[in-house]
Each structure stands twice: as structure tokens, then as C-alpha cells.
């Protein structure tokens, strides 16, 4: 009987894991999808052990969480961009500038300020989208340029010192509020990604842009929209950012973009995006990153070594998760 011989074959051949039939591979995808989650649990366990249980103390958990809100929201926007195959290095600067705008307008009215921050973020995203889609310049170059551009503006506006928000804003620094807002935004993004055409288009464009175009997706329009959306989402995140820190300096948000990329990659997002992207990458990735960010300093006090570990981890994870089939030529 065929079933038996397959089983016997597996027992005899130690490399059966590498030689699965397509049917077997298909049935194992659920396992592959859970790998980032396992990774996260393992990392938490390892660091809980290494720090002798310190990291699961409430105060440290709170610390991790507080870093997570802004990152998770902003990562959602970048998630859409990366799923479609692009990259965005400008999110940190967008956060900084939107935060500044928020602070200014918050002196008048907080809700208006939130709106202003969102609009500013969207405008910056639109610039990214314009240069990438209209002039066909690679997304990483465009967004590196705009990163410097927007950051320069941040530095300029804070020449005379940090910009503070109005006092009522700081009063809003409540955990339940931040959790609620983050949850709502993520839920919205999740529903849009999984249950609307937009999500399907984004994944199709990342997996095969030309073929997606021939199936009715509109790559140019979609890509432009997600850059605008990512900017707007980060604009909203700046509200939470300001609520947390109270005042903005010139270096606000710097390196956020690469932290986001590291987080998404740790969450299992293939760096070239495509159909294997899952919304859970955002949540799992951000949590894993925050755990590492808080735990590493406890285990390795020296920031250079922390960065070394981060760099090596990044390379290993990317090498394992990248979807080489969807890249024709590797440049």
C-alpha cells in the first residue's frame, strides 16, 4: 500500500524533511506560519531565563509595551509597503515631523492636532509615492532621500529647543487609552488587509507585479495609496508618541525605520513581500523586537554588543525567510 511505503521511506531516509512532496509541503504551511510565533516565545523564554525572571516583572513589561504602541502602528503602514515589494526608510522622519505639527496645533485643539498630524503624514507619504510611482525611482532611494529631507526640517524647527505639546496632552498618557487606540488601528488595518480588495492587490503586486497588472490590479495607484496611507498611519502614531514623551527634539523618531524593518523581519515577513506576508508579522515582530530591545541591555550591557547581536540575527532571519522564487535576478 502506498501509504506504508511512504512511511517506511521516511524512516529509512534521514533527509526526508528536505524532500517533501508538494502535498506534504502544502499541509505543512501552517507550521511555517507559526514559526515566528514560536520564535517569539522561545526568545521570551530564553531571556526570562537569562535575566532570572527580570523581564517578566510588571515594570519591565510596561516598559516593553510602552515602546510597542508607536512601533506597532507605524509598522502597519510599512507592512503594506513591504508586502507590495517596496521599502520605506522615511518613517522615522515622518514621525518626527508629524509630532512637531501635532505639538503646535495641540495648543489650539487636540482633535484638530491629531487631524493635522495625519494630514501631514499623508502629505509626506504622497511625496514618497509620487517620486516612486511617477518617476520610477527605486523606493529605497526615494525614501532615503526623503528621510534626510524631512529630518532636516525637524532639526530646523527644533533649532531653538524641543517643542512641547499643550499640557492637556500629557494628561492623556493613559495605558488603557494607548492600548485602545493601538488596538483599534490594528484592527482596522487587519480588516482592510484581509477582507478587502486592497489587501489582495497588495499581496499580488508584491508576488508578481506584471501578472497582477494583467489581472486587473492597478499597481501604480495602489502603490501610491499605500505610501500615502503609511504616512497617514504614522501621522496618527505621532499622537501617541507625543502623549508619551511630551516634547519633541530634533532627533525624534530617528532610526525608527530600521527598527520597524527589523521588527517585521523578525515577525516573519519576507523582505521582498508577496503572498507569504501575514498581518500577524506586525504584532509578533514588534513584540519580539521590544522584548529584545528591553532584554538585551540587561544581558549585554554594552550597546555595541547589542547591536552586533541584532545585526547577526537580522541576517540569519532574512536569509531564512526571503522568498527567493519571487525574485528573478538578485541584485
Amino acid at each position, binding site marked *: 500500500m502506498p501509504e506504508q511505503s511512504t512511511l517506511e521511506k521516511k524512516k529509512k531516509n534521514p533527509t526526508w524533511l528536505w524532500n517533501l512532496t508538494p502535498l506534504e509541503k502544502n499541509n505543512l504551511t501552517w507550521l511555517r506560519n507559526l514559526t515566528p510565533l514560536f520564535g517569539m516565545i522561545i526568545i521570551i523564554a530564553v531571556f526570562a531565563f537569562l535575566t532570572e525572571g527580570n523581564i517578566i516583572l510588571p515594570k519591565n513589561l510596561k516598559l516593553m509595551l510602552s515602546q510597542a504602541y508607536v512601533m506597532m502602528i507605524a509598522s502597519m503602514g510599512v507592512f503594506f509597503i513591504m508586502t507590495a*515589494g*517596496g*521599502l520605506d526608510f522615511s518613517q522615522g522622519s515622518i514621525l518626527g515631523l508629524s509630532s512637531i505639527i501635532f505639538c503646535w496645533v495641540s495648543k489650539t485643539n487636540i482633535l484638530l492636532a491629531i487631524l493635522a498630524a495625519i494630514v501631514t503624514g499623508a502629505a509626506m507619504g504622497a511625496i514618497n509615492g509620487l*517620486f*516612486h510611482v511617477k*518617476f*520610477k*525611482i*527605486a*523606493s*529605497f*532611494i*526615494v525614501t*532615503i*532621500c*526623503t*528621510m*534626510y*529631507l*524631512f*529630518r*532636516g*526640517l525637524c*532639526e*530646523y524647527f*527644533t*533649532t531653538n529647543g524641543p517643542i512641547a505639546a499643550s499640557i492637556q496632552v500629557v494628561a492623556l498618557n493613559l495605558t488603557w487609552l494607548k492600548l485602545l487606540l493601538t488596538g483599534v488601528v490594528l484592527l482596522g488595518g487587519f480588516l482592510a488587509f484581509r477582507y478587502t480588495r486592497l489587501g489582495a492587490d497588495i499581496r499580488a503586486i508584491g508576488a508578481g*507585479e*506584471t501578472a497582477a497588472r494583467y489581472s486587473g490590479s492597478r*499597481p501604480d495607484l495602489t502603490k501610491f495609496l499605500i505610501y500615502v496611507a503609511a504616512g497617514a498611519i504614522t501621522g496618527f502614531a505621532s499622537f501617541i508618541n507625543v502623549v508619551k514623551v511630551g516634547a519633541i527634539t*530634533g532627533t525624534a523618531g*530617528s*532610526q525608527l525605520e*530600521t527598527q520597524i*524593518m527589523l521588527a517585521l523581519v523578525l515577525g516573519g515577513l519576507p*523582505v*521582498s513581500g508577496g503572498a507569504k506576508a501575514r498581518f500577524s508579522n506586525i504584532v509578533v515582530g514588534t513584540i519580539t523586537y521590544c522584548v529584545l530591545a528591553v532584554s538585551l541591555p540587561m544581558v549585554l550591557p*554594552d*550597546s*555595541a*554588543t547589542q*547591536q*552586533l547581536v*541584532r*545585526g*547577526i540575527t*537580522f*541576517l540569519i532571519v*532574512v*536569509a531564512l525567510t*526571503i522568498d*527567493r522564487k519571487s*525574485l528573478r*535576478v*538578485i*541584485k
Partner: protein
Amino acid sequence: MELGDDMNEKFAKFKTGKYFGFIALIVMAVLFWAFFKILTPKNFGSGELIISYLQTSIQYAVGGCGFYFIVVMGLFDMSVGANIVLSSLVGVLLSRQYGYWGLILGCIITGTLIGCFNGFLYSKIKIPSMIVTIGLMLILESVANYVVALDASSFPGKLTSDSILAFSRAPWNYIVAVSAFMLLAFILRYTKIGTYCNAIGSNEYVAKSMGINVEKYKRVGFILLHLFLGVMALLTVSYGRGMLAVTGMASMDRNFKPLMGTFFGVAFKKYGCPVSAVVVGEFIITIIFNGLVALNVPTTINDFITGAVLLTIVTLTNRGALGTVVK
């Protein structure tokens, strides 16, 4: 009319030659200089200042020369800045005991080793060059911090004694820079490397079927890039009288001045004068930055200018063609 046709043909021939490209570059440089000179005659562009612009620009031009190989092949390297930091610090460390030899060899050999490492990793892991070099940037920055920690002198990472600062001024800085430019020109003109890198960048698939070992030449590209960066580190650490180790990808800021020169080089490739294009291009960039400073544009806006200038150069020189997929 015969005479007219003859002149047209001569002009057409001239237009394709390298002199045309070179002259166009010089004209551009003069125009930019004139632009700022007219706007702010006092703070900008005097004879002395021009010399100082030149001295500043040649360090970036050296880096730009190295970057040329990589960009021409369609690859990218984010760890450029990290290399400069690390090579500088190794040079400083070795200079404590071995003086000039330590400085020179420390910078250049470190650079080359980094290039070998990058190239090897890129080949083995098969991830797009941009992504893998982000990881490398993180690693190199960390290593640079360890190197500084090894420096037991009273000013770690700094070159305080005048006896080691020959490269921070004429004539030695010019000698180093010009040697680097000549090396690039030599490689492009007298070895297969330039031809093959161009071929790979033009059409990797066809190049492979012509028997070109694409993987090998990509690795060679990385080694050359980092070798030139080692030379640039020598100049940078001398100019700056030392180097600061950083973390958090702050070294990325150093990537872009050399890159801008490279874009000039690539844009002028078809006129056959890439080396001049890199050098004059960097000079023009330096003029722009200094000109804006002279105009009292606040220095905090420096990053803004970097972003704007780079974006403009890329839009003008590197746009994708209609119908291509750009990620």
C-alpha cells in the same frame, strides 16, 4: 551645403567623445560657482575658499570612485559609512605603535578585508545587496566600537599629534586622492574589470552567456569599493583628526556624499569620462553645500539639503524606463 554638413558631422562626432563630457562638467561647475558667487560675493568662492572646497571634495570623490563599480552593476551597499568609521579607527589604533605605516596600512587593509567579507557574504546568502549590507552595517559599527575600546591612549580614536597629520593637508592629501583617481582610471581602461562590470550592469543574463563569471566580478566589485573606502578613511580620519565610533546606524550619514559623485560618474559613463565626472561632480556638490551655508541657510537644514540634492540627481539621471517594474 557641404561645409555645413561637414561641420555637423564633426560636431556629432565631437558630441560623443570624452572631451564633450569633460567640458560639460567644467561648464556646470563654473555655472554653480557663479550662481552662488553672485548671490553672496563676500562669503563664498574666493580663491582660498575654492582650494578648501577642492580639498574637502576629494575625500568624497575617492569614495565615489569605489562606489562606481557597485552602482554600475546595479548593486548597492549601505555599509559604506560603517567601513569608513571602522577603517579609520583601525588605522588610528595601529598608528599608536607603528606611526604612518600603521595608519596607512590599517585603513587600507581593513577596507579591503571588509570588502572581501561583504562580497563573500553576499555571494553565499543570496539576498539583495541592499538588505545584506544593512545587516553588515550594524555588525561593522559594533566592531568599530570594540576597536576604539582597544585604544589605550589618552584620547581614544583621536589623532592629536601633528606628526601624524600629513594627510590632512597638501601635498599629501592630493597625492593620495590623485593616486586613487588614477587607480580607478587605470582599472577602467586597462583591465577587464571595468568592461565586465559595465556588461553585468547592462544585461546580466547576456553577460553570463558571454562567459563572464558574474558572481566573481560582483565580489571583485565589493572588494574594490571597500578598498577605495579604506583610502577615503585615511583622508577622512586625517581631516577630522580622529574618528568617532557610533551605533544605531548613524554611520549611514556618511554614505551619501560619495554616492552623489558616483551618480555623476554613472550618468556621464556614456561620454567615456567617468573618473572626471566623479571628481568634478563631487566638487560641484561641495560648492552647492558651501554655497547654501554662505547664504546663511541654517546648518540644521543640512540634512534637508542632502536629501533634496540626492533626490534631484537621482530623478535626473536614474529614472526607470516606461513599462519596467521598479520596486
